[in-house]
């Protein structure tokens, strides 16, 4: 009956009606055309041709790329976005807490999980990176959400991605409930 943030977070992956999930799937993914796309020239604003030739590079939203890159028929192939590639993963590994995940993509974990849908050599490393990144940052999120009572928390949440903000909000709610119980 009451919107519980962590429920929204835990159910955001692949939940059909979830607004966050729909927005996350708009994120663009670098793609390469593998077969001629007849009469679909409008997808490539750099050309006047009506057909997109194999080899053309495009940035397609995830929801479209995942439909065009299936095991049965690969009309396009995909590459991982820069913020999930090796160089960025190293930054996250070095010190995940300093990274502004909200600026990079407000749905960093959610979108990253969706990338695992593709058959790509870096998938295993990306999965590890997402998990380790979340674990590294979680402690600070938990601590700050449990200690910031009745104050402006913008500086604590500005660099968090949306999933982390839900976790922070859940922590704040717990703190608030405890304070209310203490004061009767």
């Amino acid at each position: 009956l009451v919107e519980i943030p962590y429920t929204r977070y835990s159910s955001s992956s692949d939940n059909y009606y979830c607004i966050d999930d729909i927005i996350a799937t708009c994120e663009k993914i670098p793609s390469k055309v593998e077969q001629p796309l007849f009469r679909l020239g409008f997808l490539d604003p750099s050309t006047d041709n009506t057909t997109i030739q194999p080899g053309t590079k495009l940035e397609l939203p995830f929801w479209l790329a995942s439909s065009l890159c299936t095991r049965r028929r690969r009309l396009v192939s995909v590459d991982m976005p820069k913020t999930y590639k090796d160089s960025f993963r190293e930054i996250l590994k070095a010190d995940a807490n300093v990274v502004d995940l909200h600026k990079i993509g407000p749905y960093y974990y959610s979108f990253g999980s969706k990338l695992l849908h593709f058959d790509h050599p870096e998938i295993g490393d990306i999965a590890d990176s997402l998990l380790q990144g979340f674990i590294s940052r979680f402690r600070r999120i938990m601590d700050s959400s449990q200690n910031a009572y009745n104050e402006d928390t913008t500086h604590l949440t500005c660099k968090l991605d949306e999933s982390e903000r839900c976790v922070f909000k859940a922590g704040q709610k717990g703190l608030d409930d405890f304070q209310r119980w203490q004061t009767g």
Partner: protein
Amino acid sequence: MFGEKALELIRELHRSTEGVLPPFNDEGIRQVLEEMRSLYEQNQADVSATVAGEQGLFSGVQLRHASLERDKRCLLAYLYNRLQKIRNMRWEFGSVLPADIKTNMSEQEVQWFTKYNKCLANYMRRLGDSGLDLTQDMQPPKS
């Protein structure tokens, strides 16, 4: 790109704060349904052409079908999430919603709300000996 109008509906709902119901976007829904109709007709034409022997049209059919599914998902999610907000308002405000909320509801949403009220009332009437209003005392009384 296809799906932009549908996404606008979703973003509109996403921007609205908790507990606030934005006005029902009839025109937005109409435009998305219009896009779906157009995509479907183009697909019908391509499928017929493929049956007649033309090659290479499958990629367009696949892309348009993905766009149709996307539009459908956005529309259903828009309606579903609005109903969730309205449902929560029932528990917050009671069976009579404030006038400023009602003006933002579509006629079908008002009908949905009426049916929801009835379901809830029927359910609560069956509880205990003489029924129980579950929407009262949502927080435990201090005593």
